[in-house]
Each structure stands twice: as structure tokens, then as C-alpha cells.
């Protein structure tokens, strides 16, 4: 167990290191950030001065070394635009993103699993066909467009939900949470629904495929031969087995939600870290982009690790090694 954890830790660090190299290289090859910090009428001398201050006059290796050592020392650079530590900027906005992603995930799971189980248990039913066509439509829709249509209908036309912003938040342990206020819930409905649709469709299809696969297994028939009811067999013996593949993609789906949150936040002007990323891309605010990517990479690596742990809890055949 301890050996496994150590091995995973090394793996995770390795992934983060590779990501840091790629992020650094991509950032170095493209554009010259010096023009982001000097005034438009700067002289050559001033530009050279700024370049020296940013360390851009040194070799790539030296720059990377500085980059990685300052990352390790907790110095993540300052935003060119906000003149604040990039990490602080992102952490301030993280709760907003996390809460939207979580609401979207819960929504997706709550809708997708029962419908997927139903469609998998009754593959030829009329309702199942409708569910499956809708889910295929769900993965064929551009999420941002759905958000837009929702805004047009519910905000512009009917005025039921607000079209943008996060609404009132309540502070708890220093975090600003909108789920604690009625206004916050009111604001989160449209963006969370928009964000959840794609994941909902994929989880649904996975659950259905899992159920159909499981229904063919001998142990299902054996359980019926013992005298268990079809329903019992389906839910007591089938469901857990069917959900194993769903759990394995759960982490990836959570990652997708964080990624697509950038778009959803942009549409709904949701003040999260995703919108900050997009704004920073527009403004070529390199330190913020870098910190966002490194932070998200860390989150993904941790999620994947947790998924593996959950996986072993569900499936006794898998052991950590």
C-alpha cells in the first residue's frame, strides 16, 4: 500500500514536470511578453531593461530553471494585467468554478444514472429509444450554444433566471459560496444545466452500455436461477458491475467539466477561474495562464488518483500495486 502510494506520487510528479516543460516551451516560443509590460512608446533601452528584469535575455535552460525553481518556492509570478500574484487571482476565483462544476456533476449523475439504467434494462422500449436519441443529441450539441439558447429563453424572453453573474454569496471559512444563498442558487441554475448536458449524455450512454453488457453475463442468469426476481438481479447484481466502467471515466468527466467551465463561465459572465483564463488569453497575461494550467494539471492528477482509489473500493479484483 505504502509502496503503491509512493509510486503514484512519483508518477504524479513526473506528469506535472512534463506539463511544466510543455507549458514553458509553448509559452517561450510564442509571442514576446515584454510588450505586455512596457508602454507602447517605450525606447529600445527601456525594452531591453524590461527584458532583463523579466529574465527574458537569458538562455531557455536558465529561464526554465528559474521558472521551475520559483514555482517550487511557491512564487507563481504576478499578473501583467492585475499586478497581483497570479496564484491569488486564481484561488480567489476557484470556489466559483468548483461550485458550478460540482452542481453540474451532481445534476449529470442524478439524471444520467437512473435513465441509463432504465435504458439498459429495457433496451427495446419506446422510452429507452427516446432517452438514447436525446443523449446522442446531447453529445452533438455545442454546449455554449445551448447556454445561449437558455439565456435567450429564460433570461431575455421570460426573465425567469438571471443571464449573468454569480449573485449573492455567503462567506464561510473565508470562501465565498453562492450555494448558501437563494440568489446564488437562482444564478447557478442556467450555467450548471448548460455545463452538465454533455457529461450527462456521456454518463448515460456509459451506464446503459454497462447495463447491457452486464445483462449478458452468466452470473446474472445464475442469480435468476437461484430464484431472485428480475429486478433484484438487475439492481443488486447488475448495477454495481455496470457502474465500474462509469467510475473509470468519472475522473475524465470531471476534468471535462472543469475545461468546459471556461466556456460556460464566459457565456454567463460567471466570475470563476475559467473566465479568468479566457480573459488572460485575450490579454496575453502569461503568468496567469501558466498558473492556471499547472493548477488544473495538479487537480486532474489528484482526481485520477482518487478515481483509482474509488475503483479499488468498488471492485475487489483490483488491488493497489
Amino acid at each position, binding site marked *: 500500500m505504502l509502496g503503491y502510494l509512493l509510486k503514484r506520487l512519483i508518477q504524479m510528479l513526473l*506528469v506535472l514536470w*512534463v*506539463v511544466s516543460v510543455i*507549458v514553458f516551451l*509553448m*509559452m517561450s*516560443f*510564442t*509571442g514576446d511578453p515584454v510588450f505586455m509590460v512596457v508602454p507602447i512608446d517605450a525606447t529600445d533601452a527601456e525594452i531591453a531593461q524590461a527584458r532583463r528584469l523579466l529574465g527574458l535575455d537569458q538562455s531557455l535552460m536558465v529561464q526554465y530553471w528559474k521558472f521551475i525553481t520559483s514555482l517550487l518556492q511557491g512564487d507563481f509570478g504576478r499578473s501583467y494585467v492585475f499586478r497581483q500574484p497570479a496564484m491569488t487571482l486564481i484561488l480567489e476565483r476557484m470556489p466559483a468554478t468548483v461550485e458550478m462544476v460540482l452542481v453540474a456533476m451532481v445534476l449529470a449523475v442524478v439524471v444520467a444514472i437512473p435513465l441509463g439504467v432504465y435504458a439498459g434494462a429495457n433496451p427495446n422500449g419506446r422510452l429507452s429509444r427516446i432517452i438514447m*436519441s436525446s443523449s*446522442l*443529441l446531447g*453529445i*452533438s*450539441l*455545442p*454546449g*455554449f*450554444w445551448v447556454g*445561449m*439558447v437558455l*439565456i*435567450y429563453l429564460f433570461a*431575455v*424572453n421570460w426573465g425567469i433566471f438571471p*443571464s449573468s453573474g454569480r449573485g449573492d454569496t455567503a462567506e464561510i471559512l473565508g470562501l465565498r459560496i453562492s450555494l448558501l444563498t437563494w440568489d446564488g442558487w437562482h444564478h447557478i441554475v442556467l450555467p450548471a444545466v448548460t455545463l452538465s448536458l454533455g457529461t450527462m449524455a456521456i454518463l448515460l450512454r456509459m451506464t446503459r*452500455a454497462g447495463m447491457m*453488457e452486464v445483462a449478458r453475463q452468466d452470473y446474472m442468469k445464475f442469480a435468476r436461477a437461484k430464484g431472485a426476481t428480475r429486478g433484484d438481479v438487475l439492481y443488486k447484481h447488475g448495477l454495481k458491475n455496470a457502474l465500474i466502467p462509469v467510475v473509470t471515466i468519472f475522473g*475524465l468527466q470531471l*476534468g*471535462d467539466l*472543469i*475545461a*468546459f467551465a*471556461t*466556456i460556460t463561465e*464566459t*457565456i454567463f459572465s460567471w466570475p470563476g477561474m475559467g473566465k479568468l*483564463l*479566457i480573459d488572460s*488569453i*485575450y490579454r496575453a497575461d502569461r503568468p496567469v*495562464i501558466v498558473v492556471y*494550467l499547472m493548477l*488544473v*494539471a495538479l487537480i*486532474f*492528477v489528484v482526481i*485520477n488518483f482518487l478515481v483509482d482509489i474509488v475503483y479499488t473500493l468498488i471492485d475487489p479484483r483490483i488491488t493497489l500495486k
Partner: protein
Amino acid sequence: MTTFLQSEFFHNYTRSSSAIIGSALMALFAFAVLAGPFLVAQNPYDIASLDLMDSYKPPVWLEGGDPRYWLGTDGQGRDVWASILYGARISVFIGLVAMIASCVIGTLLGLIAGFYGGIADSVIMRIADIQLSFPSILIALFLMSAVGTGVDKVLIALTAVGWVVYARTVRGSTLSEIEKEYVQAARVAGLPNHKIIRKHVLPNVLTPLIVIATIQVGTFVLIEASLSFLGVGVPITQPSLGLLIKNGFDVLFSGLWWTSVFPGVAIMMLVFGINLFGDFLRDELNPRLK
């Protein structure tokens, strides 16, 4: 041809309503992409053909609609229908070309990894693993933020995202293929590697790629649309369907919904058609790949 008409594949096709609807939608888009410019009088990129007097006309069935513009016009008097036909060309072009590039590069790398093994295999597969643990949209977004907008850059970003799935699939089937006796025999007989790959391995690893490639075109159309919507995809001079939606979004709050809703419907129909047909193909060609 008659043998194809008698095949089980064709038989199942005629019995599958989703396969027929899917391929009909794909055919519709193929036609629109090829014949688009001949279907509409206006070239939405030719400023001379635009008339500002015609701006913001609603669809023809609404009050104030203009029979010349049945889906309405945008702020420059540009026909939404014409924009969709031209935009679909760009979206489909990007989806197809990026798919082909991903497929070629991914297949090559997969063959190398599977056939030669060793360091090449570890490096290629490690990169693939790391890449797969990140959402494609985020990787594409990051690449676009680094290289800037442009059709060519979108193609590069999509290919960088898309090769992995081919590489993994091809590597897997190559590994199982070279285990087989006839390949072993060819190796022992001294047939050069490139010939073994071309004659024995490649033909046997391609079938599963058909399904992946079909569905990937749809995925790429969606990713491109998202990138363009965020303003880091295609340039304003070559508006894809996604960019049309973005442009329409800016005026949505004034109630001018048609400039953004209809391009979205077009994307939905295209990708839905591809996915319907892709699902059918998967069931037919590779029942276990679910």
C-alpha cells in the same frame, strides 16, 4: 456493387432508421458544402453584395421578415442562410482535414510503437497517456492561446489533440497482429519490415479506425466551434459556424436570436448526423468496441 447491396451490412443499414437519418444528414451537408455558393445569390464575404439597409431582418415568418432572407440577416445585412452555407464549408473542411491528418500521424506513430517497441514505444505511449488525462478542449485551447488564431493553427491544434486515439488503437491491434503466425512466418522468411507492415499489419488494423475517424469529424467540428466561439479559433475573415454563433451572441440580448440560433442548429444537425451514422458503423464493424 450487387454484392454490396446483398451484404449483411447493407441489409442492416436499410433496417436502421438512425443509420439512414444519419447518412441523410451527412449527405445533406456534403451537398451544402459542395454546392453552397451556387445556392445563394449573396456572397456574405463580398462587401459589395451587402446592403446595410437590410441589416437585422428577422426570419421570413416573423413580422418584418424579408422573403430574400428566409433566415434573416445580421448587423451588416448579411444573409444568415448564406453565412451558414459558407460557414459550414469552413467547419466541415477543418473537421475533415484535421481528422485525416490525425489519422495519418496517429496511425504512423501507432505502427512504429507497436511494431518496433522499445524506446519509441515508451515515449509515444507516455505522451499519449499524459495527453489523454487532459480534456482535449483544454489542450486545444492552450495551443491556440500560444499560436494565435487561423484556420491552419486550428488544424494544428486539432491534430495535436486527435492523433492519440489512433496511435493507441493501431498500436494495440499491431501488437496482436504481429503475434499471429503468418506475420511471424513473414518475418522469419526475411520480408523487410516495411513490406510486412504494408501487406500484413496495416490492412488488419484499419477497420476500427473507420468508426473513430467518423465520430472524430463531429468532435472536431464541435471543438473548432468552441475555440472560435471563444475567439481563439478561426479569424473573422473566415467565419465558421462557431464564429457565426459568437457574432450572434453579441446581439442576443437585444433579442436578435436568429443570427446565433440557426448556425447552432446547423452544427447540431451535422454532428448529430455524424454521430448517428458513427454509432451504426460501430455496431456493424466492431460490436465489442462500446
